[in-house]
């Protein structure tokens, strides 16, 4: 395993472009029922392209039986009436385990307590590209509904056969099938008894519309919640296996440094301590973390460092090093911006800069690896268990079937846990030690060797007519990503372009991807245009919007917030909105500035969010409020500082995250649209927070802040 130096172009929405790998699972039908017991199993086969991003091409399974199409989910009804749903998604704090269990209970007509979800285990669950992009709700819930509906049909048919009746007219409810004419019933458990029936089903089985949901749509508390308040839940970092050692990795002094010499201490090696050098990788495993660290401290290693870009030259570098040619998919054009600008009554051009920020999940990257009979099992907190499995298989030259990755419910990720770094490290050390090894990154490692939300530069040229109608819109994003790059406003003449730039710091997905940067720039710019047009910022937006869902969230947020009803002198109001991944958001902010210190305080945040039919309003509210608070950090003060390939603030003491004192009076208004399919909600609610706050700062002070974070050191009055 070596640290291959690669000058990659950032792939800001990496998963959108990832080819699905070959679907593979070796769970024989025989084994399937051996694991789960007899009963009824149903597999969701995705026929159309809708699930293609999430599922792999059809492939052999069940030992040479052909599964005709992609499989996204499966379900088992056991002889005791227990229901198990299988999905490749990971629970990372977004509360999807609960939402998926609710979905099954709802569609199968069983009590929620009888449903258990098996998730993110490459040996037991269907292939899944990963838990990201707000995809779980729109893709996985329909698939689980289809398998549940099909299982219900099978149970109804089994009851009909038992009674010699036609299935039509029988009723499935409360975990039993009832014949309303006679009042007799059979429990699902009785109907599943003695059966080993497996069925594939096509995708178009009718499912229950949101208006008729009984378990879904309700604020059900987090399943297994008790195990979290008692400390009993086992995160990856908590796992302990018999004979397990603790691993540490020797980190280079700076990014890209190459190991030039390596010498182990001449002192007598300690028993039970394993030191591994493999290419640029140096690590140690010992019975405690401390002993492993001491073994590494005794290693004499020399590194050759390479010159690196630093903070102060970052934004100029991004502009100067953009790819000469933009791929077509990253360029959209309509009308003529030149003509639109020529005909404008007012023109406004501006540049916006966005810093690198860190996900800083509270559970750091971690993995436990165990080798047995040439097979590798890894427990790790990742959003991409199957990609981790594939990478482990490639690195250790194993068939995919010899690697199993299991994701315990994880201490958050926010887009930051796509890669398999800790898994590779633990596996490498475990192979050398011949014992299971656990690797838990330190906070400093997490801040340094993970990856960041990419920094970026955004340039906007725009024009409006005398009455405040947008006439021209030209938008260039350098490096930070193309998500949410297109304007939702009506503009006849527009051009948007995403410019790839080679990586400076290791970068990747982050909650909302590039959408946070793009919305910050666009919604700040719209505010500035409103001011040029001498219009109220809300009215200006409304004038240029036709999308009814966007208008609805803006109206809801403004009304709930009390837009235009300022109660205190010196306070500022700001608004921003946006849509992404099928959901809509509008945020209003009220801020206060301490005149003496220049400290900016967010007093109040109100957000209206609409993501179609709500599956669990309690979990959704948690996600939305959480995104608002996380967004506040990136808006005001979060920024990674770096120089010569070193992170200068890799600690919570100098990388500031939102804490209790930063949290304003906060309210999330959830608009439930039962007529619109459910969309995901992990990302969009973060997007409008920063521009709403920035616009409020402008309202209070007349100072327009075009860089994120906006006030890392407070506001310096002009």
């Amino acid at each position: 395993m070596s640290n291959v130096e690669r000058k990659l172009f950032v792939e800001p929405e990496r998963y959108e472009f990832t080819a699905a790998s070959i679907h593979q699972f070796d769970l024989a039908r025989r084994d399937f029922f051996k694991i789960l017991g007899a009963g009824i199993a149903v597999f969701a086969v995705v026929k159309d392209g809708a699930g293609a991003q999430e599922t792999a091409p059809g492939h052999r399974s069940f030992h040479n039986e052909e599964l005709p199409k992609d499989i996204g989910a499966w379900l088992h009804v056991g002889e005791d009436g227990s229901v198990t749903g299988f999905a490749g998604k990971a629970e990372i704090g977004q509360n999807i385990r609960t939402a998926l269990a609710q979905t099954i209970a709802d569609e199968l007509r069983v009590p929620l307590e009888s449903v258990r979800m098996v998730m993110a285990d490459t040996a037991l669950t269907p292939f899944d590209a990963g838990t990201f992009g707000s995809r779980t709700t729109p893709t996985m819930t329909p698939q689980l509904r289809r398998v549940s509906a099909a299982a219900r049909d099978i149970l109804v048919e089994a009851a009909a056969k038992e009674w010699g009746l036609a299935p039509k007219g029988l009723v499935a409810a409360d975990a039993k099938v009832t014949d309303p004419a006679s009042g007799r019933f059979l429990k699902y458990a009785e109907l599943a008894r003695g059966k080993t029936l497996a069925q594939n089903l096509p995708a178009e089985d009718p499912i229950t519309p949101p208006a008729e949901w009984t378990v879904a749509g309700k604020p059900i508390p987090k399943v297994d919640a008790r195990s979290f308040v008692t400390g009993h839940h086992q995160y990856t970092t908590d796992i302990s296996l018999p004979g397990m050692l603790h691993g540490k990795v020797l980190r280079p002094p700076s990014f890209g440094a190459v190991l030039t010499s390596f010498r182990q201490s001449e002192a007598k090696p300690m028993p039970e301590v394993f030191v591994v050098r493999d290419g640029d990788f140096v690590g140690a495993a010992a019975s405690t973390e401390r002993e492993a660290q001491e073994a590494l401290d005794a290693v004499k290693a020399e590194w050759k460092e390479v010159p690196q870009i630093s903070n102060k030259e970052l934004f100029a570098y991004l502009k100067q090093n953009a790819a000469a040619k933009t791929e077509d998919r990253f360029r959209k054009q309509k009308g003529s911006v030149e003509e639109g600008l020529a005909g404008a009554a007012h023109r406004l051009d501006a540049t916006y800069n966005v810093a690198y920020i860190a996900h800083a999940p509270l559970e750091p990257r971690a993995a436990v690896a165990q080798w047995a009979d040439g097979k590798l099992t890894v427990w790790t907190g990742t959003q991409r268990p199957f990609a981790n499995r594939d990478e482990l298989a490639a690195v250790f030259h194993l068939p995919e079937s010899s690697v199993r990755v299991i994701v315990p419910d994880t201490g958050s990720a926010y887009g930051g846990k796509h890669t398999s770094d800790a898994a590779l490290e633990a596996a490498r050390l475990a192979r050398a030690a011949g014992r299971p090894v656990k690797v838990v990154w330190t906070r400093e490692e997490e801040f340094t060797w993970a990856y960041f939300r990419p920094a970026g530069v955004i340039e906007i040229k725009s024009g409006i007519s005398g009455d405040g109608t947008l006439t021209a819109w030209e938008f260039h994003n350098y490096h930070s990503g193309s998500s949410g790059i297109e304007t939702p406003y009506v503009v006849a003449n527009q051009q948007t372009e995403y410019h790839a730039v080679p990586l400076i710091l290791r970068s990747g997905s982050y909650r909302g991807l590039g959408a946070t940067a793009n919305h910050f720039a666009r919604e700040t710019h719209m505010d500035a245009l409103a001011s040029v047009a001498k219009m109220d910022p809300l009215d200006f937006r409304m004038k240029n919007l036709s999308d009814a869902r966007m208008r609805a969230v803006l109206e809801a947020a403004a009304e709930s917030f009390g837009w235009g009803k300022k109660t205190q002198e010196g306070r500022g109001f700001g608004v921003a909105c946006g849509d992404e991944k099928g959901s809509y958001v509008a945020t209003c902010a009220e801020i206060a500035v301490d005149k003496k210190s220049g400290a900016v305080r967010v007093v109040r945040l109100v957000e209206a969010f609409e993501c179609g039919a709500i599956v669990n309003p309690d979990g959704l509210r948690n996600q939305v409020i959480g995104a608002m608070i996380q967004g506040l950090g990136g808006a005001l003060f979060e920024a990674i500082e770096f120089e010569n390939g070193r992170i200068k603030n890799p600690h919570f003491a100098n990388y500031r995250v939102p804490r209790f004192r930063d949290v304003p009076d906060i309210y999330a208004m959830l608009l439930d649209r039962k007529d619109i399919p459910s969309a995901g909600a992990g990302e969009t609610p973060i997007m409008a927070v920063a521009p709403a706050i920035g616009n409020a700062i402008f309202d209070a002070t007349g100072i327009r802040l075009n860089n994120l974070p906006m006030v890392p050191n407070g506001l310096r009055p002009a």
Partner: protein
Amino acid sequence: MPIEIEVNGKRYPVNYPPDTPLLYVLRDELRLTGTKYGCGEGQCGACTVLLGGAPRRSCQIPVSAAAGKPVTTIEGLEKDGRLHPVQQAFLDAGAFQCAYCTSGMIMSSVGLLQSNINPSQSEVVQFLQGNVCRCGTHPRIMEAVRHAAKMMQERGR
């Protein structure tokens, strides 16, 4: 003579070196993993335990300094299958997302309420300022602490 520490009412001999932070003894030697590693620098509060009744960052306490003082971890709050009011309040309020910070939040809150049964909003904020919740569940945590205070007042009087 190995050090002995008392955790959740039980005495344990400690084989780890005396300068080992209490956190690692709890997690790795005693396998009480409810107490979490978050930063190892006393900056995030995930490792909070009660030491002699007061909330302390266990990553900053050498195990030798814990000898002779009772240690309470998240595992020690439940009594006879009954949750501590603060645990119950967190459960009732759904005051967690990924829940990795929850043990530390609960232990800090227990520490606060044991010394101040009726804290003001700003006292709660002040007290929990050192506990990071990266998921942004702060408003529900505040609600849980208020709710717990009420339950403890009712139960205690």
